[in-house]
């Protein structure tokens, strides 16, 4: 195969060197045990020359926010997003450290260690992509300047192209145009399968009130009979609690987990009460 000098991939070392050579005039941190560019801090951590547990996250964050204030909006985004990667990971680690880990005395230490490995993994992964992106930038920049032959076919040859098969009516064509003009949005993965549709406690309370007032006593089982949505069952239960708070109903339960019997008990009930019911749950 003929050698094509342009395509020879560069050894990763070169990529690394390039990254190291990058001017380090970005975000600097001054901690009790470290003073220097943030990038260098990452470098030290990744080479195990510094223990991440010795780095105060809040100190770094404070310094970073102060640094961001001095930045122009353009640099800000890139710098901020870079920091988020690290901050998110640091936070992850702190969370792991804070959560109760069970009986084992060593569990916390183990978790910390795992968290640190996770931090290393993530930091290194992120840095690797960041560094190799310099190679991308260099190649794209170089190739942007290249000129490739992209010349339209000669009239003589153009005639030789096979006859076009055309099957669209003007209406088909218009429909295509509509499709093409429709704003393009990146398909979005809905979260509906994660979050049940919103259920209004107030609406459910209204149903509860109506049902209870009509029959005097009712078991909770009867109150939710035929309801398949867990969210609605929960909302009805919450509205029962809320109505109890307003002394609009009483309930009795003869044994734990036994049948819950509800009884309408309101002396004076106005639907206005309903309007403010469950306000605690409003966002």
């Amino acid at each position: 195969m003929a050698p094509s000098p342009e395509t020879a991939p560069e050894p990763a070392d070169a990529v690394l060197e390039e990254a190291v050579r990058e001017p380090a005039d970005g975000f600097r941190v001054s901690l009790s045990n470290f003073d220097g560019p943030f990038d260098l801090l990452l470098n030290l951590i990744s080479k195990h020359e510094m223990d991440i547990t010795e780095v105060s996250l809040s100190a770094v964050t404070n310094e970073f926010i102060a640094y961001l204030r001095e930045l122009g909006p353009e640099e800000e985004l890139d710098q901020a997003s870079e920091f988020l990667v690290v901050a998110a990971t640091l936070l992850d680690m702190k969370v792991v450290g804070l959560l109760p880990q069970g009986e084992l005395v060593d569990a916390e230490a183990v978790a910390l260690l795992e968290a640190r490995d996770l931090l290393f993994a993530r930091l290194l992964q992120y840095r690797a992509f960041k560094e190799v992106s310099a190679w991308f930038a260099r190649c794209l920049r170089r190739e942007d300047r290249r000129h490739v032959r992209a010349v339209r076919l000669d009239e003589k040859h153009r005639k030789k192209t096979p006859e076009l098969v055309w099957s669209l009516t003007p209406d088909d064509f218009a429909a295509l145009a509509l499709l093409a003009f429709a704003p393009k949005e990146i398909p979005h993965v809905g979260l509906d399968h994660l979050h049940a549709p919103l259920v209004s406690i107030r609406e459910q309370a209204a149903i509860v009130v109506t049902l209870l007032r009509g029959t005097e006593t009712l078991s909770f089982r009867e109150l939710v009979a035929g309801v398949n949505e867990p969210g609605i069952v929960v909302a009805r239960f919450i509205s029962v609690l809320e109505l109890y708070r307003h002394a609009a109903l009483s309930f009795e339960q003869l044994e734990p987990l036994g049948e819950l019997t509800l009884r309408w008990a309101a002396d004076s009930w106005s639907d206005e009460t309903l309007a403010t019911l469950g306000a605690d749950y409003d966002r």
Partner: protein
Amino acid sequence: MTDDVMQNAEADVAAVDTPLTERIEAILLIIDEPIGLVALAAAVGSPVAAVRQSIETLVDDYDGRGRGPRRGFELREVGGGWRLYVREDHDDLVAEFIGGQAPARLSQAALETLAVIAYKQPVTRGQVASIRAVNVDSVVRTLLARGLITELFADSETGAINYGTTDALLQHLGINSLDDLPPISPLLDDGADGFDEGTIR
């Protein structure tokens, strides 16, 4: 004799130290339309006379009368300008290649791009790309090659080429003029404001 030409080129102070023939070849490789001697001389920064001589050298060179072998392309003067053409001996080969290459049907992407151009013409490639939210360079080339669209004019400010559809499209659609395209503006109610009205029928 070729060597003298090289000497001239070398003597030429024009900021460029590569041979004149190379510079001419670089320009010839990327042009769509034949280029006249004067324009070519301006492009490569050399006197017309030197460029004329280099062109002659290249013609001979490509025809196998130089040091190297004959090339599969030739340099011809057509309509007052020079351009690279496939050597005629290979026309059949090229015709067969093209015949076997081009799909007889337009892709969905090509059809949608064509529809955008039809309803929004005159329109630049950049404008089409931003509506379609994809790169349309190769699709536009296909449509041009198919004779379904044509270059109308270059924007006086940006130099960007404006495209429009051809009679060939009208024939395919079986309509007489662009006015016969079904209107799509009522259906574009919200979006239509974003476009220059009047061009959207």
